[in-house]
């Protein structure tokens, strides 16, 4: 029960670092981009970054998971496209990979 409320210094430092850079992105982005107009290539890189980031994130684990992972990924994208409900897409994807792994043994 007591360990529930433990806060270690190294964890607190990591959280502080994350919180500071995240606020810098939220507020600093507005402040800087309003004051100085960045060159168009910077804006373009920023626009492309989110999609590329998540693509780079999912590719290695999907490759490691093999075909049940790919099938699960197809289910997630399919459900997201049709329902536009992130919760439904995530649950359907987990259910699909779980089921396929059980079948595959």
């Amino acid at each position: 029960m007591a360990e529930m409320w433990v806060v270690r210094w190294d964890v607190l430092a990591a959280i502080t670092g994350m919180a500071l850079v995240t606020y810098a992105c939220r507020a600093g982005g507005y402040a800087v981009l309003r004051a100085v107009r960045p060159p168009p290539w910077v804006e373009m890189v920023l626009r492309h970054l989110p999609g590329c980031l998540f693509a780079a994130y999912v590719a290695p684990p999907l490759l490691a998971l093999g075909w049940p992972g790919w099938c699960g990924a197809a289910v997630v994208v399919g459900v997201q496209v049709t329902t536009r409900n992130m919760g439904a897409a995530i649950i359907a994807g987990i259910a699909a990979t779980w089921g396929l792994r059980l079948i595959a043994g």
Partner: protein
Amino acid sequence: MSGSEERSRGRVIFTRDGVRRGAVTSVPLLIGMVPFGLVIGVLSAAKGLSFAEAVLMSTFVFAGAAQLVVLELWTDPAPILAATIAALVVNIRMAPMGAALAPWLDKLRGWKLWGTLSTLVDHSFALGIAEQRAGGRDAGFLLGVGLCIWVGWVATVAAGHLGGGLVRVPPGHPLFFASIAAFLSILVPLWRGPRLDLLPWGVAALVAIAAHRAALPVPLPLLLGSFAGAGLGAWMEMRGRGMPGWKDASRG
């Protein structure tokens, strides 16, 4: 009530009613957010974070995708530098959001401005832009959406941590597919068509896989993949326009 330009750029107000309306509008989004928050909570518990640490992170960082990436690369002792860099890379996408909401934000001062910015997330950005385009001029709307998502986020992560601490999910369990699933579903609305996104996303994925195979430490595969893809995307757009960027910038 004449002309959308007048309404959106004219008298911008910030009222309690606007905050309330934003909060009410964002309630349906909470339903979609619950599994994501639960996953972060369960993952926090699995990675050895205490309840207090998981709640602190969710309260002060308040960025699901960044928390997910950081927890994936979590070690004991905590990877302070890697976590900070990963959060920066994942959240840099928020930088242009504030600029896009400028018609509202420019009229705010003090805590209303900096407080609203601290609650800025993908949801409040999307709803805020929609409200702005519909002629809304109550900037409190943005804070309302942000606050509602914030409370929902911290509560679901806390619930996930409590549940995860009880069940002890082993590594490699299909439940961890939830993090991949969450990012895949974020990717769907980001897709702007094959001409703009196919090559950059493909290159980002391939570079990340290659860096992963080369056993480069985290978050290097993520960083290299993201910037290789985004750089290529920007280069393709510049070439498509047939002009070097700095010329355009000097005119602006």
